[in-house]
């Protein structure tokens, strides 16, 4: 088929596997990328003429490898290898070689490729940018748009990141079990950060940045296909799908955040929710709890609830308590307090967050939650002060606007009685 859309989809989907194998072969990112680019150029010519090969990734690996070797042989005036013209299909002597190239090592190849992007010296945003460039194959212009920076700034960032990994001491032997699970964890974090980069977007550029969420989900599924039995990778994929399912309801026409309690649940994406729920069920069978699964389980309870008030808050509070033990952090405790307020009332929740005041003094969300709890307790004056502090700490115009609307509500309805909404 000579449909250019097919060609693009085939090249996009084959890219991670091909680059990963070429990186193992050449042990150098630049050579691997150049070899892949060369293979793509030849694919555009060859596939439109001879039709696509049965296994596009294997074709790209073999042709890319030959092209790079050929270049270095020419350089050393040696015999060239046969050209890709004879490789219209791989059902020949080359096949066993390609099989050996991909199936045995693919898992660790891809994990290594993703792991390379997570070099500890790189700040998170550079890790993400690098993964989008190298693994996903997004153009620098596309990445720059998603990060809301200029193309030249992003170009510079990626070049610097690449220079950093070029000097890194990459491990090419097959990793042991402990090393493999460490790599998986690091890569999962990077995918989660990539997702949040898109998910935290507000304003009129939010739509553009949602593409980052889609890409994160694609990478999570890719990883999951290779590590099918890893409960936390199942949990991560479930979490991303369940969070992203609310995207259409999370922002209003002006790109301002709509709180979950005010969201139109009919806008939630049922297909993503169903897949997320299927995955979380799968993960929980492993009885091997981890933070992504717990967060996915919380998101699943929201997804299952017919309305905000009919949400299973006691279960959500328990899950946050579990998360607190697995991954202690004042922010998790703050989230537990929000659930606790629904179960035991605002007073209990306020008791829970008071000790966090020091550590979260500069955290916008802390003052937002505290303000709402004080308001629910009828302590309007303190609520107003706390809301004002929240506005001063807001990171975005959308956050400030949201608190202002809470303040307006407080002014028009100054002393509501406490309302545990169990």
């Amino acid at each position, binding site marked *: 088929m000579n449909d250019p859309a097919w060609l693009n989809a085939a090249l996009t989907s084959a890219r991670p596997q091909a680059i990963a194998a070429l990186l193992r072969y050449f042990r150098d990112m630049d050579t691997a990328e150049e070899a892949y680019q060369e293979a793509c150029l030849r694919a555009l010519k060859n596939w439109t003429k001879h039709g696509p090969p049965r296994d596009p990734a294997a074709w790209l690996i073999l042709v890319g490898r030959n092209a790079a070797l050929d270049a270095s042989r020419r350089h050393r005036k040696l015999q060239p290898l046969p050209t890709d013209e004879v490789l219209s299909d791989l059902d020949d002597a080359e096949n066993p070689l390609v099989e050996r190239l991909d199936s045995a090592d693919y898992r660790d190849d891809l994990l290594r490729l993703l792991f390379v992007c997570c070099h500890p010296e790189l700040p998170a945003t550079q890790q993400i940018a690098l993964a989008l460039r190298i693994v996903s194959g997004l153009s620098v212009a596309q990445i720059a748009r998603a990060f809301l920076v200029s193309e030249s700034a992003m170009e510079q960032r990626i070049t610097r990141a690449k220079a950093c990994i070029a000097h890194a001491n990459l491990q090419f032997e097959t990793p042991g079990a402990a090393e493999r699970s460490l790599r998986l964890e690091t890569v999962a974090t990077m995918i989660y950060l990539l997702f949040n980069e898109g998910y935290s977007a507000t304003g009129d550029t939010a739509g553009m940045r949602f593409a980052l969420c889609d890409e994160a989900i694609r990478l999570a599924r890719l990883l999951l*296909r290779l590590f099918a039995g890893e409960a936390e990778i199942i949990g991560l994929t479930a979490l991303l799908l369940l969070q992203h399912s609310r995207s259409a309801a999370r922002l209003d026409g002006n790109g301002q955040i709509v709180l979950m309690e005010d969201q139109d649940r009919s806008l939630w994406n049922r297909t993503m929710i169903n897949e997320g729920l299927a995955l979380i069920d799968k993960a929980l069978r492993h009885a091997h709890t981890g933070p992504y699964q717990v967060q996915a389980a919380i998101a699943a309870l929201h997804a299952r609830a017919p309305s905000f008030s009919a949400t299973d808050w006691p279960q959500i509070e328990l899950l946050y308590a579990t998360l607190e033990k697995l991954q202690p952090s004042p922010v998790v405790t703050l989230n537990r307090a929000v659930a606790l307020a629904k179960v035991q009332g605002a007073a209990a929740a306020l008791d829970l967050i008071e000790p966090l005041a020091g550590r979260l003094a500069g955290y916008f969300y802390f003052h937002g939650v505290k303000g709402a709890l004080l308001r629910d307790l009828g302590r309007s004056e303190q609520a107003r002060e706390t809301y004002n502090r929240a506005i001063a700490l807001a990171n975005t115009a959308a956050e400030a606007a949201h608190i202002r609307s809470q303040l307006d509500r407080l002014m028009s309805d100054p002393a509501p009685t406490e309302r545990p909404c169990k």
Partner: protein
Amino acid sequence: MPILLYAVLCYHSEDVVMSWPAPREAAVMDRLAAVEEKLSKAGRLGPVAKLMPTTAAVTLRKDQDPPLIIDGPFAETKEQLLGFFIIECAGLPEAITAASELARANPGGAYEIRPVAVLRTNKVFQ
């Protein structure tokens, strides 16, 4: 004329299909809907299913007791079972005609045309 049911089982590389940009996906779905409507108007279309990604699957190996439950699809293959149509046909030529029309609407991959032995239509889908 005997009436036979055929399952048209859709195989394609999941990686490739999931890399389709949204407009392409929408265009394919529109074209498929047009073919489905024609079959449906002729009273020949049964259940149509798009399956979730294979990452959502578990496989139950039932050659032992208790069965072994494994994460992932039954077979690791280059192309995966992604969905199916059930179509009523007078025979294989008609099934091939219907599948060819679907194929024009959604090129790439393969359709396995497989006669259905028994089909129970239970109420869940109503």
